[in-house]
């Protein structure tokens, strides 16, 4: 009943073939095994693998040039920022399918305030974050109170947010796409660039750093892991699981609003459909990074590398000149491989 599946293939250098001693007890692991079983290993290996792939095949076409590097890093940063709260929520055992629609809603709010009404760019930002808080609270409240799967709850809020955003956009401006130019400090915070490196990279590093610290080094992070590992156990142990989930749903919505504002002010155009793909690519980044879909396990550092992997692939294909079907196929295969590899590594971590 105890130790799970059969021995993983590549064993460590010193662990004996016979795994269980008489009491089913554990054994010391070699340093190598310790490294391999870290939750972020899969993500790091994936990122390295795809980087080498495109470096070899597309290095001369520009993938390795400063512009090429900036391109995939920018892509990784946008996705990476969104993936962090998605990952934290996933570790807690829940999903937020409304993040895509929230990005679009934040975008259109900023577009209406800054573009259509010509107000100070920070006012639109303020309203976008207020809307995010409202949506996050709604998601959290519904999930915690109704005990319905968050998949269902956030699916419905996704439709509501999209419909609401579209209705407001058409109602006020007659369009679903609005020009929005930020100036001054707002332009710097959300859209500054050095050469072609977006300020999104800075934000990503900060957000990832803080999040990793919270997950690994604080009691709250421990509570997140426990909530996802086993809700009943966590609750019985005294973890305030409802509060944990509420906070995490707020984080995903606010994260989505941040990404929405950033992308809107960067391209200087607001659109209701902005960010629709993040539901999928965000989860992909998490899974490639070694997160368990059912929660309770994984490292945010892995998610960082998962986002990097996705960024490298989704940019690299254009240096190769592949058409879009091949791109989708590649990402799908990559996801499958990453899931399998991470599952294997996890078995290994559980002691074969």
């Amino acid at each position, binding site marked *: 009943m105890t130790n799970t599946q059969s021995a993983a293939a590549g064993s460590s250098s010193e662990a004996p073939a016979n795994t269980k001693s008489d009491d089913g007890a554990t054994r010391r692991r070699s340093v190598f095994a310790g490294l391999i079983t870290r939750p972020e290993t899969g993500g790091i290996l994936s990122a390295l693998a795809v980087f080498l792939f495109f470096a070899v095949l597309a290095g001369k076409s520009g993938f390795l040039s400063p512009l090429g590097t900036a391109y995939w890093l920018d892509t990784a940063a946008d996705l990476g920022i969104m993936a962090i709260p998605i990952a934290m929520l996933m570790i807690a055992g829940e999903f937020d399918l409304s993040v895509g629609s929230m990005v679009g809603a934040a975008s259109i709010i900023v577009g209406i305030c800054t573009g259509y009404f010509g107000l100070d760019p920070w006012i639109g930002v303020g309203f976008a974050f207020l809307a995010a808080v409202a949506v996050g609270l709604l998601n959290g409240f519904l999930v915690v109170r109704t005990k319905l799967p968050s998949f269902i709850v956030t699916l419905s809020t996704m439709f509501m947010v999209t419909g609401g955003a579209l209705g407001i956009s058409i109602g006020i401006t007659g369009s679903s796409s609005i020009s929005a130019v930020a100036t001054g400090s707002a332009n710097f915070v959300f859209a500054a660039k050095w050469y072609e490196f977006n300020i999104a990279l800075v934000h990503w590093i900060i957000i990832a750093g803080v999040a990793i610290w919270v997950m690994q080094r604080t009691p709250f992070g421990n509570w997140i892991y426990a909530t996802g590992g086993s809700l009943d*156990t966590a609750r019985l142990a005294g973890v305030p699981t409802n509060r944990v989930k509420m906070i995490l749903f707020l984080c995903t919505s606010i994260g989505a609003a941040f990404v929405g504002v950033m992308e809107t002010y960067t391209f200087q155009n607001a659109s209701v459909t902005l960010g629709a793909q993040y539901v999928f690519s965000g989860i992909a980044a998490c899974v490639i990074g070694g997160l368990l879909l059912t929660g309770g396990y994984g490292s945010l550092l892995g998610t960082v590398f998962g986002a990097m992997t996705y960024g490298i692939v989704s940019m690299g294909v254009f240096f190769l000149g592949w058409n879009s079907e091949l791109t989708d196929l590649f990402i799908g295969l990559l996801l499958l491989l990453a899931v399998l590899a991470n599952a294997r590594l996890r078995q290994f971590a559980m002691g074969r």
Partner: protein
Amino acid sequence: MATPIVELRGISKHFQGVQAVNDLSLSVEAGQVLCLLGENGAGKSTVIKILTGVERPSSGDVLIDGEVSHLVSPRHARERGIATVYQEIGTLPLMSVARNFVLAAEPTKGRGPFRRLDIEEAGRIALAGLRELGISRVHDAGQLVGTLSGGERQALAIARALHFGARVLVLDEPTAALGVRESATVLKLIHTVRQRGVAVVFITHNAYHAYSVGDHFVVMRRGEMSASFDKADKPIGEVIELMAGGAELRSLLSAAEAGVMGPATAGV
């Protein structure tokens, strides 16, 4: 006789017209193991829930250290020293031993925004707790609980409860899903904690396990106490028979042998 750590006096509980427990009294002293026996539906779970603050009795008293107490929640019961160790949902397999041990009571160091989890201290506490229960094979507090054997996981749960001040441990079917070797580990654990002066309420279906650690036995049937005795009072064979249904089972068997099928009506 020492004051029992915890005592149920004349406890009754009904749910919407169904009498789950009727006028049940039992008590446990420090260093004593009380085995609560009975078939499914006998009312054992309800008694446990009352004991651990999950439910409140419809009538009767819960006494802790001789004083009437009103337990309003499991957390309250835990604060008073009554801790439950569950069968399946005791520990988190994907978490490390250290983190599991200190969950919801994590030691921290530093102040303000730099207040962080003291993972080294957590590891120290966890390993020390396990060692006190005689588990010496776990050396790395960072290893995942899923790599521990079933017996070691129970030890972890028990050590955690003891560390947070449990004086009464309620073990709900701890050996039900374990093999022979692992069950032996758990029974050894119960012996160990008993020697440390902890009271144990042990719920089980397995008469052999009950007999090997129990000091006092309470058999429940249809919400009432049908037998209460010390180990010294009865031999193992009789205990098993009592658990299995005793006289009623005998009469059912003989009726079946005599070829008479149908419900046993003789009140037992």
